[in-house]
Structures are given as C-alpha cells and as structure tokens.
C-alpha cells in the first residue's frame, strides 16, 4: 500500500498558503483537527477561506484562526458561540456564508462524489433561496445547490493507518468523512497511527484513497463546550 505518513502537522500543512480554501472537520469542538489548526495558527497565514460547520469558541478550534485574523471568509451553518466572529463581521473584515447544516453536508458530499449540483427542499421559502434555481418535482419545490470542494481538507480521526484509512469515534465523525473526500489534498490527523493491515477493512469509515497525508497528533485536549451530567 501507498504510505501517506508525514512527520507532523507542520510538514502536513507545508503547502497551505495565504488565500487557501480549507475544509475543516468537526462539529462544535468535537472531532476538530486540533493539531492542524494549531500549526496553521503558528504559520500565521492570511486571507484563508474556511468551510467548517461552526466557528469554534474564542480560544479554541476555528476561533483561534479568527482571533489571529487569518480568515477572509467563513462558510458555516452556525457561528453563535464566537464573539470574535461578530466583531470582525460587523467591522466588515470577514465575509460569512451561512448554509443549512444538511445542505452544507450534502454539498461537501457532492464535491467528493463528483455531483456538480443537486436539488434539496431545505431553504424553500427562506431568504437563503434568493437567487437560486427552484424546481418542482412530484408536486414539491426544491432548490438547486452546487458542490463544495477545496484545495485542502483537514480532518481528525480516532485511528488511522499508513495507507490513509480512517476510523472515527462517537459523534466526532460528523463532517470529517465528507470533507476528507472533498479536499484536493486531504490531511488526516489521528490519535493512533498503525501500519497498513492492522485495521479491519470492514470497519474503515474513510478509505485511504481520500487521504494524501496522515500523521499522529499528540496531546489532544478535546475540549468540551457544554458539560452536562445526570444528577
């Protein structure tokens, strides 16, 4: 099998430059590419476009990129938790494109799957439908939506092998598999990297073909946004 292992996050993001378009996995702070984001912060790039379901919080996740004013545009479904976003947005320093979460997921899935456009009922009657083609199928209205692809995808998995195969854990899976398939160069970071052949082929969530670089991250913080416990 082709060996996709790279040294570390710095090595993995070596050709991400000012102005790159990035897909960033995760839902809230769950399943985000922590090591990759930290490496981006250290590199202090400018003018990035990030496609990520959320904007992180002020001092973690995508919020770290916002804080350093590295983003030109954010494409997300929900940015409610981030105050830094609001300031930059109101100051006109940041573009925002809000997309319904299911449409965002399906557009990214379409990008990886070679489907340039598809119809979905989500958004009909809302202001998100403005300027979009509407068509009736079987008596119901649908919006035409385009695929989303990007130069780079940064995803995080639980286990991975040197062939690039990935297994996610719990709800940390979320946007990661779709983004892995929609990135021209997909960078996977894993908690545990094993030699090809150690993972059960039947349990792979992301086949290695979608991953161009893989490394084992260290010291995952896995911050929790809302700790809720049973009494």
């Amino acid at each position: 099998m082709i060996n996709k292992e790279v040294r570390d996050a710095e090595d993995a993001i070596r050709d991400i430059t000012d102005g790159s378009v990035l897909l960033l996995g995760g839902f809230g702070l769950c399943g985000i590419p922590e090591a990759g984001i930290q490496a981006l912060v250290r590199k202090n790039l400018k003018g990035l476009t990030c496609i990520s379901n959320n904007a992180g919080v002020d001092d973690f996740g995508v919020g770290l990129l916002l804080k350093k004013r590295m983003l030109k545009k954010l494409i997300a479904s929900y940015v409610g938790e981030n105050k830094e976003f609001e300031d930059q947005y109101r100051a006109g320093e940041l573009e925002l494109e809000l997309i319904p979460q299911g449409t965002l997921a399906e557009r990214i899935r379409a990008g990886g799957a070679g489907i340039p456009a598809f119809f979905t009922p989500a958004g009909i009657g809302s202001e998100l439908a403005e300027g979009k083609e509407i068509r009736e199928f079987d008596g119901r209205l649908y919006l035409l939506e385009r695929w989303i692809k990007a130069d780079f995808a940064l995803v995080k998995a639980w286990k991975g092998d040197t062939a690039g195969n990935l297994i996610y854990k719990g709800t940390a899976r979320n946007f990661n598999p779709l983004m892995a398939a929609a990135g021209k160069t997909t960078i996977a970071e894993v908690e545990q990297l094993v030699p090809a052949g150690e993972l059960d082929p039947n349990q792979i969530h992301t086949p290695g073909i979608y991953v161009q670089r893989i490394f084992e991250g260290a010291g995952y913080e896995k911050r929790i946004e809302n700790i809720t416990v049973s009494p």
Partner: protein
Amino acid sequence: MLSKEQIARRIAREIKDGQYINLGIGIPTLVANYIPDHLQVVLQSENGLLGIGPYPQSSDINPDLVNAGKETISMVKGSSLFDSADAFAMIRGGHIDMAILGALEVSENGDISNWKIASGLIKGVGGALDLVASDAKLLVAMLHCHKDGSSKLRKQCKFPVTGVRCVHKIFTDLGVFSILPEGGFKLLEHAPGVDPDEIRKKTEGRLVIKGEIPEMTGFQ
C-alpha cells in the same frame, strides 16, 4: 402559565410508540426527560447519532460523544453512529417521524422562523432548515410572547422565515394550538389559570376558538 419544563412534559404526551424523533435545542431537549417509559422511541442527534441516552454520570463524560447542542450525552442500547451527510440524508429522506423545535415565531399559515439571532445578527441556521423542510411532523415549543410582550404567534413572521407551511402544532406556556388548513391558530387546550381571552390578547395572528376548550393536562 406553564414553565418550560411543563411545556416539555406536555409535548412528551404527543410522542407515539416506535417513533424516531429529533429534538431541537432549548425546551425540546427537555422533552427527552419526560418520554413515558413504556414507549419505545429513538432520539436522533443530527451530528451523527441515533439513540441518544441520558446525560452521562460525571465519571462517564466522553468528549467524543455530544449532541447537537454540544452537550455531553450517552447512548442507549441499539444506537448507531454516522456522519453528517448520512444524518441529514435520514432527515431529508423522510425517515424521522417527528421533529420538536424551538422557534422565534410561527405565522398563522404555519411558517416558522427559528434562526439563531443575537444582537440583531443572524448567527446560524444549523439543522433547522433541513428539519422543517422534511416530512417529519413538526411540533414547535416556545414561550407565547417575546420578552417585550409582543406575540410569537403572528399573522406573518417579523423575522426571516426558515420554512413555510410546515408547522403542525405549537405548544406554549399559554396553550396548545394547531394550524388550520385555511390559516389561523386553532386553540386546542389552554394552560390552567389562563383565560382564552388572555390567549386572544397575546396572539397577534388569527386565533380560532370553537366550543369548550379543555384545560391542558399531562404536564404535572
């Protein structure tokens, strides 16, 4: 007037055996606590889980297991995990039987507005647009009025709409309402101690009161 917990309790009575249900953030999340034990229902979390269980014991907190409100959760027996595209394929494909959502406002023809708006800025749409456009029976849980006293049951929504003609029933602190096919909120039940006249005053849209309106029960 009902508390949020009481609204949640009342909605829980709408749930039928064998249903797959998506609960939104806020009052809807509370509904999970009041589903009768004899009903076999499955709760979906649109970030990739079928089979949400109770909040975990503090010793069992798992950062890799959160719900759509980013709260730590547990899984029940028979759960399954999947990615976000599959989660919304499930919703869009009509496999979820019922969605219980919060809302900013509902119009008398069943339009819903439930963007996340903070200081006048739309800060998110989340999964609500997909849910309201799906075949899931849509129940709305919300307080009857905004903080300034203006009604959330309106002729037309003031806020931008997230879905049109999609709401099935509304549960507020004042009563239970259905949407009439020709438009209008039909009062089905009133909260204890709440006069239908008070409801009429606090409902901006067309309110239809026909015959004797029973008092809400099943929220204790």
